[in-house]
Structure formats: C-alpha cells, structure tokens
C-alpha cells in the first residue's frame, strides 16, 4: 500500500523498537524487514533518523562492529528503558485501535 507515510509517522518508532526487541540488528536490516512487512515507502534514511532519536533518548544500546567492506556498522539492542518504552507503545496502540474500531463499528 502506498502513501502510508503520514499515518505511519507516529507508529514507526514503536515498530522499530519492536524489531530491535527481537534481536540486535542494524539500520539496513530494519529497513528491509519493514519493507518485507509491506511498508514499501520506508527508506533507510527514515529508519536512520528514528534510530538517532532512540539513541538520544537512551532507549537503545549501540555497538559498532566492523562490516565486510566499508565503514563499521552500528548495531542496536534494547535496554531496560527501551523495553519499558515498547510496552508503553503497545498499550497506546491497543487504546487507539480499540477506539478507532469502535468508531468504525458505529461509535457506541
């Protein structure tokens, strides 16, 4: 589905947290996973900006590892603050989706 960017904006950070929660990973792999999931519009630059924000907010642990060729890659893993943020994200998600579904079903 195209043109999801606007709607995805607030939730992409939670998606990235969830992906990192499953295993330590890096920007390119995260982008690929989101693409395979069906979010074709998501580019590595978008994910990069999110990763920077997560790092700045102290939600991830960053390790630099040498890659086959080219500069070393940054790998991301969740820390305790990140896991807490992720569970808050899912709570908010449940809240919103429950209410929006209710609205769609007639609103009462």
């Amino acid at each position, binding site marked *: 589905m195209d043109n999801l960017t606007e709607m995805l904006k607030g939730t992409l950070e939670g998606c990235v947290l969830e992906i990192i929660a499953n295993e330590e990973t890096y*920007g*390119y792999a995260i982008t690929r996973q989101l693409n395979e999931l069906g979010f074709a*519009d998501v*580019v*590595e*630059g*978008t994910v*990069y*900006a*999110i990763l*920077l*924000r997560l790092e*700045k907010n102290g939600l991830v642990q960053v390790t630099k590892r040498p*890659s086959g*060729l*080219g*500069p070393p*890659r940054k790998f991301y893993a969740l820390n305790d603050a990140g896991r807490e943020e992720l569970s808050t994200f899912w709570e908010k998600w449940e809240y919103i989706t429950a209410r929006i579904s209710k609205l769609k079903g007639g609103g009462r």
Partner: protein
Amino acid sequence: MNFWETITGSDITREWKAFDVRAAVLPADHRAAWEEIKGHVSLYSDFTGRNLTPILDGALGLLEETSSDGQSVHEVLGDDIAGFCAALAGGEGARSYRDRWREQLNRNVAKKLGRLGG
C-alpha cells in the same frame, strides 16, 4: 575547542573540509545528495553552525555505509531529502535561529505587556 577556534570558528571550517574530503570519494548520486543535505540542514543552523557538525557527520556516515552496500541514493533517502534533514535536525535537538528569534520576540512582547499591565 580552544579560545581562538571559538572566536573564529576555524574548527568548524576544518571539520567541514574534512567532510568534503570524505564526500569526494562517494559515487556521484551520493555526492549530489550530500550537497543537497548540506543545503537543507543549514536551515537548522544555530548562530555558529556548530550544532550541525554531528548531524552532518551522521548523515555522511549513512551515505558512506549505504554506498558501500551498493544501495542507490533513492533507496536510502526516498524522495524527501528535506523531510529527512528535518527529522535529523529535530532528532538531534538542533534548534534553528528562527526558533530563537521567535522565542526572543515572544519574550519581549510578554515583557512589554507585563510592563503595560503592571
């Protein structure tokens, strides 16, 4: 950063030159994106531009990494380089000189009003 560098900004010039040296070895499309990123990011400059150095360093790192992966710039940044730059600058907490002016203006107006009122 020493006093001389603080006053003249010579450290920034040096760092920016180092960026351009790194950018020079990138493939053409990545190099073009780099030029565009520099232009966009400068909107978020503080008075000296010192706040931009880490942002540009990161963006250049991304270009280096992705070019060595063999990705095209379009795959990496999509169509919205301006949006990418805004997200980076926002993510780094960089505030533009316009935010500062706006704040200053608001403060001054509030002060004036306070004086009139009291």
